[in-house]
């Protein structure tokens, strides 16, 4: 009997030890590497300069991010990822996060001091200060900028990084810059763009321009609805817009601070954007579009990018709003050709929306999207290895390698020094699934390279730049206000408590029965018990009086 119990006990102990060991690093360096694989030679540039650096110790680096695809094998998959894992002698332990759980998972991991080695974090200032104060984020060594100069240079471009560093007295967060060497405008503005059916607009006699007011866009939608130039019938949606995009089209185009922004008025006192009359203007246009049936009667029930699909997959929409970079245009072109048999150039016109005052409205965007954070318990070796990789990725000369693959295999320079893709109809991210978004967004985001990436049509790239420039030209300091770092980096209990979902808040107001203006005023009044304390604090701290 005793022997039986001993056997059970030993079995349990063995299983437990096995489970503990499963997540650890391999016993032998290079255990999972693929020594037999023939990886193409890397591109030139920083790689050659770093040639002397060798990584003897094999590491396992855990990464939690929305910018990875869990179906991709990042260790033994394509040649691109093999090149990285062999060069830096490591293997990934990738934890793919979906968008809906991204923030909460990381929040739980960070607070329970159980975060992976590296994570992509959607920065929140209140939380950041909290984490820094508690030592829940790794503090980069003071000399990191000298050791990893490419990361340091891009970090300066992120605007947020240096500002936060000054406040926190050290570097804890590396914001990923959207633009670094190539910047389309002095201040960064959003790139979301309206895609119109050019052929339908021409059929109903609607003038094609680079920008429209909401009133003009609604006029287009009315014409489409009345005349149905595409013979779509009952399924026709003049403007396909999920609540997020409806907020962009109708409200943010008119109200600069609609998304809860606090700003200084002419007297130097802080005000709250959603309580402004221009927010009401946007809401009224939104409601008008809904009541006239110019947006889907069930726009609130769209999931994912259903609205965009109505434009480029089912072809029932007269207009939609989506990303305005060359990649999105390419995706739209491909989808329309595959699904509808239509040529993009014949049927699509891109434009943006301005306010009823003729100005482009948007606060200056801080030049970053998401941040890199490290576990406070990350080993020095892993941290340095990851920083080496980021530094390689952030160098100007490796930009092309990162997004287009191997020189001589996937691309080459022509006699004029221009980059020419050798991939024909495909792109590097299709040939090497690991490229996008894992390596591609390792530090500097791909937006910048999309402006010069020859994989995308020149017409698209030029169009993106043109729209950026026009937006910027149509704004001024009042409608494209500079970042107010006082507000941005202010943290207090009252401010941290604000948790509005603007997409839903405005959609609810539009859908609410009764008079919109009365409902909006009541809603603004109801929020005052949360908002007034923040305004009082900001005025006391930074206000004019």
């Amino acid at each position, binding site marked *: 009997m005793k022997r039986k119990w001993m056997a059970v006990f030993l079995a349990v102990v063995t299983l437990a030890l096995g489970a503990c060991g499963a997540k650890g690093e391999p016993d032998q360096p290079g255990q999972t590497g693929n020594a037999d694989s023939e990886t193409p030679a890397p591109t030139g540039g920083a790689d050659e300069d770093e040639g002397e650096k060798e990584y003897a110790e094999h590491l396992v680096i855990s990464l939690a991010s929305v910018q990875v695809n869990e179906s991709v094998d990042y260790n033994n998959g394509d040649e691109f990822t093999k090149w990285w894992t062999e060069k830096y002698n490591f293997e990934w332990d990738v934890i793919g996060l979906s968008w809906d759980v991204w923030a909460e998972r990381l929040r739980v991991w960070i607070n329970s001091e159980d975060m992976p080695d590296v994570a992509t974090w959607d920065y929140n200032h209140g939380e950041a200060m*909290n984490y820094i104060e*508690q030592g*829940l984020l790794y503090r980069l060594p003071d000399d990191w900028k000298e050791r990893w100069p490419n990361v340091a240079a891009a970090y300066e471009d992120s605007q947020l990084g240096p500002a936060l560093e000054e406040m926190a007295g050290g570097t804890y967060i590396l914001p990923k810059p959207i633009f670094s060497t190539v910047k389309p405008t002095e201040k960064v503005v959003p790139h979301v763009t309206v895609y119109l059916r050019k052929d339908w607009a021409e059929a109903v006699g609607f003038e094609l321009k680079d920008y429209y007011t909401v009133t003009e866009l609604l006029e287009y939608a009315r014409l489409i609805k009345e005349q149905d130039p595409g013979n779509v019938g009952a399924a026709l949606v003049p403007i396909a817009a999920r609540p997020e995009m409806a907020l962009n089209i109708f409200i943010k185009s008119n109200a600069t601070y609609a998304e809860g922004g606090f700003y200084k008025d002419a007297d130097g006192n802080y005000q709250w954007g959603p309580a402004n009359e221009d927010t009401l203007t946007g809401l009224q246009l939104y409601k008008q579009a809904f009541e006239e049936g110019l947006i889907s009667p*069930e726009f609130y*029930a769209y999931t994912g990018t259903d609205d965009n699909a109505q434009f480029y997959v089912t072809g029932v929409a007269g207009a939609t709003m989506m990303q305005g970079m060359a990649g999105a245009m390419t995706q739209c072109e491909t989808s329309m050709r595959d699904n509808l048999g239509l040529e993009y150039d014949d049927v699509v016109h891109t434009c943006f929306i301005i306010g009823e005052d003729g100005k482009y409205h948007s606060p200056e965007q801080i030049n970053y999207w998401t941040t890199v954070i490290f576990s406070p318990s990350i080993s020095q070796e892993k941290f340095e290895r990851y920083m080496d990789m980021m530094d390689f990725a952030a160098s100007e000369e490796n930009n092309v390698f990162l997004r287009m693959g191997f020189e001589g295999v996937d691309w080459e320079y022509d006699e004029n020094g221009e980059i020419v893709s050798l991939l024909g109809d495909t792109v590097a991210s299709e040939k090497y699934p690991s490229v996008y978004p894992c390596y591609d967004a390792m530090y500097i985001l791909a937006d910048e390279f999309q402006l010069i990436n020859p994989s995308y049509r020149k017409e698209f790239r030029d169009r993106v730049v043109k729209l950026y420039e026009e937006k910027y030209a149509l704004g001024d300091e009042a409608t494209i206000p500079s970042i107010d770092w006082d507000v941005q980096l202010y943290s207090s209990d009252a401010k*941290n408590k604000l948790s509005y979902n603007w997409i*839903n808040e405005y959609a609810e107001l539009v859908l609410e029965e009764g008079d919109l203006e009365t409902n909006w005023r009541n809603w603004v009044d109801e929020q005052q018990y949360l908002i007034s304390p923040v305004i009082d604090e900001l005025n006391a701290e930074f206000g004019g009086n």
Partner: protein
Amino acid sequence: MGKGKRLFRRIWKNKTIYIVLLPALLWYLIFVYVPMGGLMLAFKDYKANLGILGSPWTGLKHFENLFRDMDFWQSVGRTLKINVIRLLVTFPVPVIIALLFNELRMRKYKKVLQTVFTFPHFLSWIIIASVLRNVLAYDGIVNSIIGLFGGDVVNFLGNKRMFQPMLYLTDIWKEAGWGSIIYLAAISGIDQEQYEAADIDGASRLQKMLRITLPNIMPTVAVMFILAAGGIMGAGFDQIFNMTNAAVRESGEILDMYIYRITFQATPDFGFSMAVSLFRSIVNMVLLVIADRGSRLFGGNGLFG
């Protein structure tokens, strides 16, 4: 012999039963009672680096903030409204289904029906919500059928007045069959002699159902009702979270949605979130005791006999 010694001897005598019970006791201890220590967070300013025990005490600060929050009171009111109605509307359905199943004489047909009724329980709310979105959309099958008969399109998904009834209907569809299993088990334990005696007395099937079956399962019904009443403040998160949209969000922001929002969609304040959870648990406890006492008052069984 001392009391303790007697107890020990009794336990030793029935050691096999206690060994079988041990895993469940350990599970309860580890996963239910030990985490209760975390409740102290409701009175602390939680700092992860200091841990639960090391974080500084804040007294009733979180409760003061909580009771000042209008969103909190609205969500409490909504939770009570939705779940009290849910209890009244959905609770009798499994009982009725069990009574009807019991009357079926064709065993094969009964089994098929039971499977059909039980199956939805195994679907997650996210699946049900997406099916509903497709079925009830403007261009969904239901509106198409209405259209075929010349009716106007009905806005099912964005109608606030329809949202709560839809919660109850989908809840019944998903859970009633599963819920009936426990009553069927209770029915199977009824002494058959009672039915035989009723047959001799010439009782109809309806009379047997109402005078024999129903009274016999009433103790089970009472216990299930008390347990359901004790969960009123915490019911329905998965369902509402998946079925809600911007048009009906206000109708569905129950207390658990509020907790989710303040914990996971805002700068987290775990002490504050714990204060809300503690409040919710206390209300649930009060409701449980009220239901228990109410059941005894009306001559029924309480939770503890």
